[in-house]
């Protein structure tokens, strides 16, 4: 219980920050917002790294599959978002 409340506090505050920032994203950029937020939700990669490094076959195996999934998210997400946002231009 001693860790739960601080974590819950962080969670709630982060939700408010998220709502503040994201409501300002224009519909023009909603698709890159989705792929970009997918990329950063690939932060689960650090959980996967810890699991792969854990002792025991089952955690390592589950962690390895998670590591592959999360790496797809991170690399695929940031790259495809870059491809999209680089296309939005204004003619001179």
């Amino acid at each position: 219980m001693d860790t739960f409340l601080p974590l819950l506090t962080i969670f709630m505050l982060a939700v408010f920050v998220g709502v503040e920032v994201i409501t300002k994203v224009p519909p023009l950029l909603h698709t890159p917002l989705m792929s970009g937020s997918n990329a950063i939700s690939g932060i689960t990669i650090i959980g996967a790294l810890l699991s792969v490094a854990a002792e025991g076959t089952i955690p390592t195996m589950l962690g390895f599959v998670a590591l592959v999934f999360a790496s797809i998210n991170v690399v695929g997400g940031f790259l495809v978002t870059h491809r999209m946002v680089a296309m939005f231009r204004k003619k001179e």
Partner: protein
Amino acid sequence: MISVFIDLTYLVASVLFIFGIKGLTHPRTAVRGNLLGATGMLLAVVATLADREVFGSGVQGLGLIVAGVLLGSAIGGTLALKIQMTAMPQMVAVLNAFGGGASALIAGAVLADAADPSTQTAVATVVSGIIGSVTFWGSLVAFDKLQGLMLPDNPVHFPAQQVLNVLLALGAIGLGAWVVADPSQLTTYGWLVVVGSVLGILLTIPIGGADMPVAIALLNSYSGLAAASTGFVLNNNILIITGSLVGASGLILTQIMCKAMNRSLMNVLLGAIGPDSGPIQGADEVYAGRVKSTSPEEVAMLFDGAKRVVIVPGYGMAVAQAQHQVRDLANLLESNGTEVEFAIHPVAGRMPGHMNVLLAEANVDYDKLREMDDINPSFEQTDVTLIIGANDIVNPVARTDPSSPIAGMPILDVDKSRTVVVVKRSLSPGFAGIPNPLFAADNTVMLFADGKKAVLDLIAAIKAG
């Protein structure tokens, strides 16, 4: 000492993620924003590698890490570089799936690893397992529908569907309670994931076609919530912060999409609208003898005298891959002195922002892509509105008939422009399954053809004229 350094790096990475999303509030800063986010990710990964447990996991552990990262990066990189812009909804669906899957797997790994997990860890593991598996399989179903593989694009209904869903949800919660009571049995968690997976499939199959933007946005939100929940499993701040940002983002987009269809989230999730919600009523009554078919030459003549033209793209433009031809047409009209703008409905296409990405790919200046509320008042001063592959989002019935399935849905007021040209292959109804009186209106002419061919013919006719 090293753990303080790691936590500080996580804090920096979290801040970079927030600035990254903030960058997406304007096209000018979007590229930099995305790079900031990627930098944050790199910092977080490097800091985690410095963790004593990870660094000290030996040759085998580090070998697996390198192999996993390389394999995932190769798959993700290939997907990202090869995917067509028209297929972006599928790409986001796949990314949602992997995000949810990773969370469920990590939660399982922690449960298997922990000798005596705390109640917080056990409860968070259960939440990650349920949301993660629902997200993984729900997103794969969404991908399948968008790609047109095995499942029909339309809603799938069967008897007692809702009862079964409620039973499955209760089953998942029951198994969850069992995991919390006795965390040593990994098999129970396995069954929980199985039940969650079936639930994910069943929750997504009733959602069809034009409702996909809502499903994709909601699954995006779930993948974030799963990551946040995994943060509670690992007692890790950065997962909680990032997960809640993504969860909030998905929920906001879901809400925007529902509002743009004037429907409740529940109504969309139950698949309560669509081609199988009843026979198509009164198509003959609406259309009989009133639909005027036209030729590219006639439309070219309409354009010739036009001061202002508005182009309304819909999912049909994406299907026909006509965005580049549409751009050529817009440039040609502008070179003849006509003002051209694009009217983008929030739910046009199969995911939020789908049309904007396609037109940006075709090099259309983003200042010309106008939002619905912004452009609606200008239709009265518009000489010609050209609709390419859109239907329900321009159906005036939404304003006039309270009994219609799309009643109250905000639409583009194209019928107020002087002339409306509709490019469409046939009079077949849109996703809502209802006839569109716009096609029979006095100021509307129909150009029956495939989107790409029609636009090419129009360009040729204008150049000839």
